[in-house]
């Protein structure tokens, strides 16, 4: 029997980079293969090639023994390859049923047979134990549920090979455990699975084999039995990585930022932050843990002047900050690493140099009166690119040319450049590779040690646990608990995040 997926010597060049350099790998039925690699290592390109979305310059991809044809995505799908994309490929305004049947609708005459479709979805969700409401509209569902829909969508087509692209990035610890269980069961039933993730402990937990890409090359194939997390990280980055952050005792100082009874509406004008009290001391990292969509985004935006407050106040060193605009908040002494770096963190068509001074473009040394000092900007850019190890051919390339991790480094570098008393970092390592995560974490710790009050908002519980001095758990728009990170119990916090009492 031939392998489910056979990739032989695939090479793909883009102008200036070799995205895939002579890559070969196979996936057999019933096994879970983890595909690891930093951002920009070539994983996405490889997968797109498998789906016929990208045409390799050389090499061959076979599914079930027969080569695929470029552009024939439908053919690849028909041969039993399913993919759960990192960015969900769901139409937000359509129902669960409509999304799942898209592209293969059951018909009655000319029309779609809606009842048959609905029954089929119910049967499918029962068969795999993935409960969904077939009539719910996607945009009303929490992300964990949306992902279920994605998986069902793939399973409906009788997949033999299921590719999961960073499936756990947005899930709670409990949801992750459930998902890993689903993966194991699918493999048991004979489905071949390719799992792409940055989370090494997940790889250790479910993978049968591990394949590591670096800089477009396949640098290693191993299995969880032969190595450990540190070993995997080393293969990915090409040097040894310290996974455990070296954190010294915090020198906790006075309260710098105080949030009192804050209430904030979300975009739909619903009350999302329902009365939050928090105090942030200098020299500490306060981690705000919580499943996404529980008000963290609105909380951060309200503090940083990006969203109006309904009631309550935010005091900076005892002085109330009214509904200030983001610029005024920054002037007042709060720096902000926004959650969505593409939308709020960078102007992607501007150069890296300009992006590095977006918060100080009108101040000395980058401006003299109303004229920009281009040489100072250039000098700053060159220095920062070197200091923060931002991987780019030049500091004057546009920000859009950078990989996710390097974009994030630009944002972090800019926000830390002034040593402001407060740093609010929202999801600072989302979609960022292991090497950059290590770097960003160390920067946050360094800022703390210089006396900054750091608020770290993250959906990654591990990140919160390893960095924070204190942990505030947010659920349903409220802070449900504030714990000392010393001896904090992962499962207990997970339950709090899920909104369970005890």
């Amino acid at each position, binding site marked *: 029997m031939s392998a489910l997926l056979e990739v032989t010597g695939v090479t793909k060049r883009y102008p200036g980079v070799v995205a895939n350099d002579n890559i070969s790998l196979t996936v057999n039925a019933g096994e879970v293969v983890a595909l690891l690699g930093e951002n920009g290592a070539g994983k996405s390109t490889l997968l*797109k090639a498998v*789906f016929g*979305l*990208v045409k390799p310059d050389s090499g061959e991809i076979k599914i079930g023994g027969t080569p695929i044809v470029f552009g024939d*995505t*439908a053919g690849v*799908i*028909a041969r039993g390859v399913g*993919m759960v*994309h990192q*960015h969900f*490929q*769901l*139409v*937000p*305004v*359509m129902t669960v049923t*409509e*999304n799942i*049947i*898209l*592209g*293969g*609708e059951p*018909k009655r005459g*000319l*029309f*779609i047979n809606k009842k048959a479709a609905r029954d089929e979805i119910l049967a499918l969700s029962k068969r795999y134990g993935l409960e969904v409401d077939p009539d719910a509209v996607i945009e009303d569902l929490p992300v964990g549920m949306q992902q279920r829909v994605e998986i069902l*969508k793939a399973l409906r087509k009788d997949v033999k090979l299921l590719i999961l692209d960073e499936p756990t990035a947005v899930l709670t610890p409990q949801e992750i455990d459930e998902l890993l269980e689903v993966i194991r069961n699918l493999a048991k039933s004979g489905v071949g699975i390719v799992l792409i993730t940055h989370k090494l402990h997940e790889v250790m937990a479910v993978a049968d084999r591990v394949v590591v890409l670096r800089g477009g090359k396949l640098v290693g194939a191993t299995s969880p039995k032969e190595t450990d997390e540190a070993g995997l990280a080393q293969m990915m980055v090409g040097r040894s990585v310290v996974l455990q952050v070296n954190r010294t005792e915090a020198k906790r100082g006075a309260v710098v930022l105080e949030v009192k009874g804050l209430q904030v509406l979300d975009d739909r004008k619903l009350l999302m932050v329902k009365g939050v009290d928090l105090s942030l001391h200098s020299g500490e990292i306060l981690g705000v843990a919580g499943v996404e969509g529980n008000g963290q985004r609105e909380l951060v935006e309200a503090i940083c002047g990006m969203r109006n407050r309904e009631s309550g106040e935010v005091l900076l060193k005892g002085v109330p900050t009214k509904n200030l605009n983001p610029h005024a908040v920054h002037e007042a002494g709060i720096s902000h690493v926004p959650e969505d770096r593409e939308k709020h963190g960078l102007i992607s068509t501007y150069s890296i140099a300009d992006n590095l001074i977006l918060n100080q473009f009108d101040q000395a040394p980058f401006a003299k009166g109303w004229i920009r000092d281009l040489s100072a900007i250039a000098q700053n850019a060159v220095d920062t690119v070197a200091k923060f190890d931002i991987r780019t051919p030049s500091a004057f390339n546009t920000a859009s040319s950078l990989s996710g991790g390097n974009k994030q480094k630009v944002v972090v570098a800019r926000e830390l450049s002034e040593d402001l008393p407060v740093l609010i970092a929202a999801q600072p390592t989302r979609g960022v590779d292991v090497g950059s995560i290590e770097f960003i974490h160390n920067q946050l710790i360094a800022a703390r040690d210089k006396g900054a009050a750091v608020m770290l908002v993250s959906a990654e519980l591990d990140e919160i646990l390893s960095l924070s001095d204190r942990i505030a758990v947010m659920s349903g728009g409220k802070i449900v608990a504030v714990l000392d990170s010393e001896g904090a119990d992962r499962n207990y916090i997970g339950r709090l995040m899920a909104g369970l009492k005890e």
Partner: protein
Amino acid sequence: MPLALAAMVGIMCERTGIVNIGIEGTLLLTSFVAFYAAIATKSILIGFCIAMATGVAMSLLLALMSVTWKMDQIIAGTILNILATGLTSFFYIQGNMLPNMFKQKPIPGLSNIPFFGDVLFKHGVLMYLGFVVILTLYFALFHTSWGLRSRAVGEHPSAADTAGVSVTKLRYINVAVAGAIGGLCGSYLVLELVGSWNRGFTAGKGFTALALMIFGRWNPLGALAAAMFFGLSQAGANQLMIDGTVNIPPQFVGILPYVMVLIVLAISAGKVRPPAAEGQPYEKGQG
């Protein structure tokens, strides 16, 4: 009623994510072609067919520019408008007559129903065809695979693509069909409703249709209702002018229907939601 049909052109395009502001140009050129082709061949049927073909050709040009060349769709639509204005002005010759027109064919029985009989069942062939198009489009859009796929392409093209639906193909097909509907509408205007053609014949109907499409929330029946509302306010305005009960210049009264649409649009603007991927060229393999 031609407005409702013209709005279908917009719906067909925009539901798959192509903004078509070239409807005006399509109507202008197809009505022009219908008129002269009918005169030249002495057959209004041939005129109608050639107008449909012209509509499809213009649409394919729009698809080529916006889907294949990934041009800005507002510019692509504007090109169609300018092209139509230019061509029709250049080739316009005064003083031609149509051999005949599509005649009113009241449907026996139904046309005797008070009010509705007059509104719906006393028309020529092209108008009936138009009604069929509107109803068919409604059912097709919401109850067939084609409709589901089209809407998915307009909302989230990469979701459709990864489900094995060809975004490019569907956009081409739908825009082409939209062109045919445009040809039908242009033919109706000249061959059934008016009977003659002059410069600037369509007088902004294509743009009004876009507004009605938004007002009708990209739903064929909604656009039909919007067109009826517009038609009623136009009739009301005419009545006011004829009665002479109000002492305001007729130009202002003539504006009334447009002002009403403007007001309704302004009020509902915050609530309507266009297809999410509207106006964006689709790059395979991105996102």
